[in-house]
């Protein structure tokens, strides 16, 4: 199998209606900022795996190898008006949007399923454990932006865009078909951002996605699509910016398929040695997205070795700081089990909460 980054491109997205930031023309400061984000995410991801091994957190779903896809996509989002609908492997997107990483990691410390961050304030929906579960929510939310009747082309700079994150595995779910069909019929401002990372736990894309590409399906919904090298952060950024601009202009949904590679295990409980070899990983994974971007920065004189050393050291420091925060995270009071079931609780639930309190305090 050829390196996945070399997958043939597909691009049916028309030229942008709204002005676009040209990633290729990004200045050295922006490029260095992108590298810092990649490096921060890489270090934090590796740290989280270590925390699991140390017993600090019970589990984690690593995103090693998907940094360019996630940072590139996240950097195209305007968190003040867009809304990201993640799965359980979007730490890099959350980071890029500015979600507090201790609050994010709280879900992996088993403190609270959805995480402790505020989804409304951050524009990042609660951590989602159901594969494909939130894709339809992005469509509904985005249709709501259309119904709000503000932000059409030329007004307020365009619509808020819902970004649904999903993987090649999730693309097998019926909900993803329903979401794409609904979105296309409603002309909802949605970007379906697919990280095709080659694996759904142990099952390779070849056994998962008939035809090999989720982006190729878009034509059937009369939706434009871009398939992009998901390990090229600038390519992902540009593709996502174009897709967001298209949706923002009220022209309907877009599929972006970032061809990347899950270099690590599915989760800290997974053992990839049972379904692929280290050689497979080396060949299929292609060049590491961070080293690729380092080459780009060096070639354009946007950064030098000293910058990388400093950025990587700072990334490590940040990961250490997040670790301190995760260590300090305390359990939520048990009463919260009852507090958030409803906005308006019920007598039955109130009675259960009282009984829980009496009997747990007795012990």
């Amino acid at each position, binding site marked *: 199998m050829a390196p996945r980054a070399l997958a043939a491109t597909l691009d049916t997205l028309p030229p942008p209606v709204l002005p676009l930031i040209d990633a290729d023309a990004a200045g050295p400061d922006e490029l260095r900022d992108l590298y810092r984000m990649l490096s921060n995410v890489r270090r934090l991801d590796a740290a989280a795996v270590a925390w699991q091994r140390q017993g600090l957190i019970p589990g984690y779903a690593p995103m090693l190898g998907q940094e360019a896809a996630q940072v590139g996509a996240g950097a195209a989002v305007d968190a003040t008006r867009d809304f990201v609908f993640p799965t359980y492997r979007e730490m890099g997107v959350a980071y890029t949007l500015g979600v507090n990483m201790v609050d994010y990691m709280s879900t992996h410390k088993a403190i609270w399923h959805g995480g402790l961050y505020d*989804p409304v304030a951050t524009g990042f929906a609660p951590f989602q454990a159901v594969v494909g579960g939130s894709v339809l*929510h992005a*469509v*509904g939310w985005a249709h*709501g932006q259309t119904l709000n009747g503000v932000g059409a082309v030329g007004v307020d700079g365009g619509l808020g865009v819902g970004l649904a994150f999903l993987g090649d595995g999730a693309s097998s779910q019926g909900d993803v078909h329903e979401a794409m069909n*609904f979105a296309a019929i409603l002309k909802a401002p949605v970007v379906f951002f697919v990280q095709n990372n080659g694996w759904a736990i142990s099952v390779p894309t070849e056994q998962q996605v008939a035809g090999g590409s989720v982006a190729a399906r878009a034509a059937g919904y009369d939706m434009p699509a871009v398939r992009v090298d998901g390990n090229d952060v600038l390519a992902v950024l540009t593709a996502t910016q174009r897709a967001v601009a298209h949706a923002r202009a009220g022209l309907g949904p877009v599929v972006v398929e970032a061809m990347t590679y899950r270099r690590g295990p599915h989760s800290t409980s997974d053992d990839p040695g049972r379904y692929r070899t280290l050689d497979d990983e080396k060949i299929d994974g292609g060049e590491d997205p961070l080293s690729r971007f380092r080459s780009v920065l060096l070639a354009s004189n946007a950064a030098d070795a000293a910058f990388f050393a400093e950025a990587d050291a700072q990334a490590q420091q940040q990961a250490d700081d997040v670790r301190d925060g995760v260590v300090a995270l305390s359990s939520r009071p048990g009463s919260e089990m009852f507090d*958030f079931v*409803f906005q308006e609780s*019920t007598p039955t639930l109130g009675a259960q909460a009282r009984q829980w309190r009496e009997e747990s305090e007795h012990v």
Partner: protein
Amino acid sequence: MSNALQNDTLESDREMASTPLVQLSMQQAINRALGEILEADDRALIFGEDVGVLGGVFRVTDGLQARFGANRVFDTPLAESGILGTAIGLAMAGFHPIPEVQFDGFAYPAVNQIITQLARMNYRSRGTLPMPVTLRVPSFGGIRAPEHHGESLESLFAHVPGLKVVSPSNPQQAYHLLKHAAAMPDPVIFMEPKARYWNKAGVNLSDNLTDSASDSGSVEGSVIARPGKHATLIAWGAMVSRCLQVAELAAEDGIELEVLDLRWLKPIDEAGLSASVSRTRRAIVVHEGPHTAGLGAEVAALVSQSCFDALRAPVERVTGFDVPYPSGDLEDEYIPNIDRILFGVQRVLEYRRG
């Protein structure tokens, strides 16, 4: 239903007397309520299969798209999971969706979104993403329909943390309970007894009804549909009118049956159940859904616990059977009928401790 009111509802009786009753079928009452909801709340949206131009297969949404436009009342593709998932996203965007699933059995493809998402989003988000979604589901059997058009889903949904479940038994309740449900900040499964869509009754359209335990427009808890002293029949949806028929027949033999219309299947009105059965000392719960792990088991457990000393007989359950809902030709054999309910009454009345 004028004979169905308790003594303690005289006040609302008087209020009803001063407000003209409008004769409406349940289908008309729900249609009217939906129109008023859309009128009063510009964030309310109605969508589902065929709810727009057609006005729904039961015409419950008749005329609403013409009145409020295709942005407020719209047809969706034929995909129930898509309807519910989109409703969740719209709620996240600040809307108040009132989606329709065309028939009870069509809710099954949406069960994943209902259970794993709708019911949990408020919890998962620590209250920052409320789900003010009222899901209308034409429910239960009795209309000789094809397979998957006669299901009783209340025990399934009542079991799911984060959902509230309600079923009106008459037009008056349908009108007021729907308006109440649509104003609630939590997800409500609104189970409409489709067999009762066309039965007309007086509806008091006033919003200023006292919230007493009467059938006059209160929206909380259960109501006593008919007072009695020898045993309590507990029912909801279309089974309430059947139990009222049973009570009428039993009265001819001098047996005074109380009929308690549970209405809210989650949360269950434990105090109302307890008050009634403490007086009558005998209880029969009647529902269309299958017997095993049906909602009757929950009701029986609650009654047994709260009325143990008062009970003169074990709580009886008269229910559907543990079989797939049968074809129309056999549904009268399946749905609790008058004879089967009377047998249940007989069992609790004749019970003697061994």
